C-alpha cells in the first residue's frame, strides 16, 4: 500500500484517503453565460495525462481536510503535496 504524505498529518496509508480528481478546476465565474460546449468542458472534460498530474486528495480517515498533490500517473509516485490555495509546485518527473 502506498504512503501518501498528508501536508497536515504526515505519511499515512492510502486507504485513509479519498481521491478527488484533477486539481485547479475552477467553478465558472459566470455560469449563466456559458455555452453548452463550455458547460460540457467544465463538467465532463478533464486532463488525463500519462505523467505528472495535479490532483486533489482528502484525508478522510485522518484530519478530513482536502489538499493537492502532483503524482506521476505512470509510476504512481507522489512528487509533491501542497495545501489548497497554494500554487502547483515545480516538479521534475
Amino acid at each position: 500500500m502506498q504512503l501518501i504524505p498528508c501536508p497536515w498529518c504526515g505519511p499515512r496509508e492510502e486507504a485513509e484517503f479519498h481521491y478527488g480528481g484533477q486539481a485547479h478546476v475552477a467553478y465558472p465565474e459566470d455560469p449563466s453565460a456559458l455555452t453548452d460546449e463550455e458547460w460540457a468542458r467544465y463538467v465532463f472534460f478533464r486532463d488525463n495525462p500519462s505523467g505528472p498530474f495535479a490532483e486533489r486528495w482528502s484525508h478522510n480517515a485522518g484530519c478530513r481536510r482536502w489538499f493537492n498533490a502532483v503524482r506521476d500517473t505512470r509510476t504512481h509516485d507522489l512528487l509533491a503535496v501542497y495545501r489548497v490555495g497554494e500554487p502547483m509546485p515545480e516538479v521534475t518527473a
Partner: protein
Amino acid sequence: MTSPPGAHLPEHPDFLWDNPEPKSSYDVVIVGGGGHGIATAYYLAKVHGITNVAVLEKGWLAGGNMARNTTIIRSNYLWDESSGIYEHSLKLWEGLEEDLGYPILFDQRGVLNLAHSLQDVRDSVRRVNANRLNGIDAEWVDPAGVKEICPIVNTSPDVRYPVLGATYQPRAGIAKHDYVAWGYARAAHAMGVDLIQNCEVTGMETSGGRITAVETSRGRIAAGKVALCAAGHSSVLAEMVGLRLPLASHPLQALVSELLEPVHPTVVMSNAVHVYVSQAHKGELVMGAGIDSYNGYGQRGSFHIIEQQMSAALELFPVFARAHLLRTWAGIVDVSPDASPIVGLTPVGGLYLNCGWGTGGFKATPGVGDCFAHTIAHDKPHPFNEPFTLERFTTGALVDEHGAAAVAH
C-alpha cells in the same frame, strides 16, 4: 473416468501471422493491436474489402487489456442504445468460431448479477424487463434459484450483504481471450492486413483539417484514414491532434487462483460488494475488482483493492477460503462519464475514435469491430454506434449505464 482439467484444450498453435516491416503508406492505419483493433481490421477486410490496412501495436499483439480482462461476455444492459451494440456483439460471438475457423472456447454458461438490497432488486427487475423488451434473454431468479444455478454461492440471510436474488442471462458466458485475438489476427493476416508490433505512434500529421500520416517509432506512415483503438491510452493519442476526450484512465485489477477442479458452473457478478467471478476452462478462478480510485497508466494498482475484493469473494463463496492466489495484475481502462463508450467520427477528417469502454470492452470485441469498420469504411456511424458520439457530452444525450455496467465502470 474423468479427464484432467483442460484435456479438451487444443495444442499451442504455431505462428499465425507475420511480422512485416511497415510500408510507407496504407489506406487505413489502426492504432492499437488489441482485440478491438484486430477485430476492426478483420471486418474492414472481410465485409468492406479494404485490405491495405496496418494495425500498429506499441507492444505485442493483444498484450494490453485483451490479455488482462476477465473474459465475461453478456448483453444485459439497461438502455436501448446499449442493448443494440452489446446484443449485436453477443450474436456475433455465437457464430464467431465458425466465422474465424478457429477455436475460441466460447462457453455460454450464463451470468448471474446479484442483488443485495431492495433498491438492487428493483433496479434488477427493471433491467430484466428492459432486456426482454429488447429481445434479450433475461430472467429474475430468487435466492433459491441462485443456489440452483450456482450451488457454491452463499445465499444465507446471515451475511452483511445477503443475496436477495439475481438477474440471469443464460446466453452470457466466457471465451478464451488469447484465442479470440489469435483467431482474428490469423484471419486478418490471411486477408492481407499488416499486423505491426513494437511500433508506437508518437505523433500525427494533419493537413487542411484531415489526418494524413502517423509518426511512429518505426518511421512515418502515411494514412488515408486513422482509427484509434487504444483503450487507456486514447487520451494521449487524441492530444496529438489537439482533441480532448472526456476520459479518465484508471488501473483495473484482476486475479486468478491456482488451478482447481470444476466448482463454479457459471459467471457471478455483484455490483454491491464489487466482485465478479468465473472459472476459466483450465481451472483457475478468475476474479475482477473495482477500479483503483486514482488516474494511472502504470498497469498496477493498490493492494487494498485486492484485499477488499477478496473479502467480498469470500463472503459470497465461503468455499474459496482455502484457494491460493496465484497472481494479480492490472490493465488501464478508459472510463467515460456515463459508463458508455465513444465510437464514431471526430472533428479531424479521416480520424475515427473507439474508446471509453472502461471496464467492459472485451465483450464488445466482435460487435464494435464490425460497427467501427463500417464507420471507417463509410465515414458514417453504423446505426448501432450512432448514439455513442463524442458530441453527446455537449448535447446531453448521455447513455447512463452505471447500473448495468456493473462494477465501477
